[in-house]
């Protein structure tokens, strides 16, 4: 068993999940079963293989340039106004569960 109930509690905390007791038990079982399958990756020696974060690395990156210039293919010219228009205030707030019409409202952040 790689993943214990303690690990599940720790990871749930990182992921902003609470999980019920029965969900935690099930999660220990499922994660162990999946990770066991994933361990087959260790059969491969990858010490000299570069990691690949995304496909565009292979399609557009110009390795002859330096730093962020390598990713010039992904940049766009600035729009005339400099930035594109933002959503109108009321539209941006329209889906929020709670607002005071100026800000998003949330429960207290700090308990006194």
């Amino acid at each position: 068993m790689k993943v214990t109930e303690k690990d599940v509690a720790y990871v749930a905390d990182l992921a902003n999940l609470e999980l019920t007791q029965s969900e935690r038990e099930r999660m220990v079982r499922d994660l162990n079963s999946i990770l066991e399958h994933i361990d087959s990756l260790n059969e491969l020696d990858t010490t000299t293989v570069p990691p690949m974060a995304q496909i565009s690395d292979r399609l557009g990156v110009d390795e002859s340039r330096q730093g962020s210039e390598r990713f010039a293919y992904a940049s766009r010219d600035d729009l005339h106004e400099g930035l594109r228009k933002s959503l109108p205030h009321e539209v941006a707030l329209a889906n929020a569960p709670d607002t005071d019409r100026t800000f998003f409202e949330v429960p207290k952040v700090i308990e006194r």
Partner: protein
Amino acid sequence: MELRSLTIDDARSTVQQRKASAVSLAESFYTKIQTDDPKIGAYLTLSKERAFAKAAEIDKLAEKGERLPPLGGVPVAIKDVMVTKGVRTTAGSKILGNYIPPYDCTAVSRLEAAGAIVLGKLNCDEFAMGSSNENSAWKPVHNPSDLSRVPGGSSGGAAAAVAADMAVAALGSDTGGSIRQPASFCGVVGLMPTYGRVSRYGLIAFASSLDHIGPLTKTVRDAATILGVIAGRDPMDSTSAEVPVPNYVGELEKPVSGLKIGVAKEYFGEGLDGEVRKAVEAAIQKLAGLGCEVVEVSLPHSKYAIPTYYIVATAEASSNLARFDGVRYGFRAPEAHTLSQMYRCTRDLGFGAEVKRRIMLGTYALSAGYYDAYYLKAQRVRTLLTRDFEDAFRKVDAIVTPTSPTAAFKLGEKVDDPLAMYLADIYTVTADLAGIPGISVPCGETRENLPIGLQILGKHFDEATILRVAHAYEMSREKSEVRSQSAEVNQHHSVT
């Protein structure tokens, strides 16, 4: 109006020639949805107001005798992971149950700009995470070929809607096989374009380096038409590629003879159903008969694709889904008294079991102490999987495989075993990881009349070739089916 086998060109010319108005065509589809969808479950939301407004606009053009755009008056539907301005978009999740987007997904606005009528939003696995559509928070989808079976996933509603004639075509999304596998299960065509070919702007993110938008259609020609409309650079998605868009429909009829078709033994091993194998091998024979040269290739790292995928995809998902916290949109858990408690309760109640499982797995793989062992390792193996294809495509123009190891399975059959469910994607995930295009085209049925799909994979940005091969195969299959039907009739006559 006969909706069965109504293609894009049929629908468009019907409206163009004013045999039926775009409004009445949309009405026919809504009637069909009202009658048939209660037993299938493909639709989550209908966008009638938007559809009829657009249809009226198209009718005006037709009345004036103006030439309609390529999708003029064609009723389509959209997987519910693409945002639609003013039309509820849930991603199949309770956490977005009441979300009304303030903007349109680029692919959707491009469809509408080409004249398409958006009928509504289609059911899918929650956040596109699943292979059976059983992870929808709202309702399961039933396979139109056999209502006791799944339609595949995660674009299950899209595949079922097209198969059951409740839309002429649909847009789906594919992160590990979610267009091609349901297309295969439901007997329709499903195309996943090259990564970057179609803008992802407005696609609710699951795994950003793997997500693709593509069409599900009745014919390969329809898939080519839609790709031509949605493909191309979009300044709103920096990963959309600045690569010219060819005339996909124009390229369809080019001969396939002389093309080199690769067959990889790794896709015909343990776990492949006998009937699926037979149908796919027969399809390969048919391609050889059309003059393609069949060449054996090797993709030696294929068996590592599923473990690689379930690290990369879940890691990206855990990060992407962090935005759902009950603050700016969507569901918020009531009765939480602190901010931290509100986040947790909202996510606990808002997400389903599979989504939580993937967030947990991805968070674990990215957490301190495990990053190198899991995430970095998977990224390195992703390079190996991509090199496998690059090597193979030095020798061949396309690679053919089964789309899925089995035909559609029963509802409930795999819900308690996440690993077994993940293995349903074994032949599709590698193309997502490598970013190459793939298409699934129907290639026969099992004895129980369940559709089987043939997958054709191509080089980066070479959708034209896989569409051409798929089209040639589809045409040859239609001819031989007509022949075998007339042979049956002849036999019948000679007996009597």
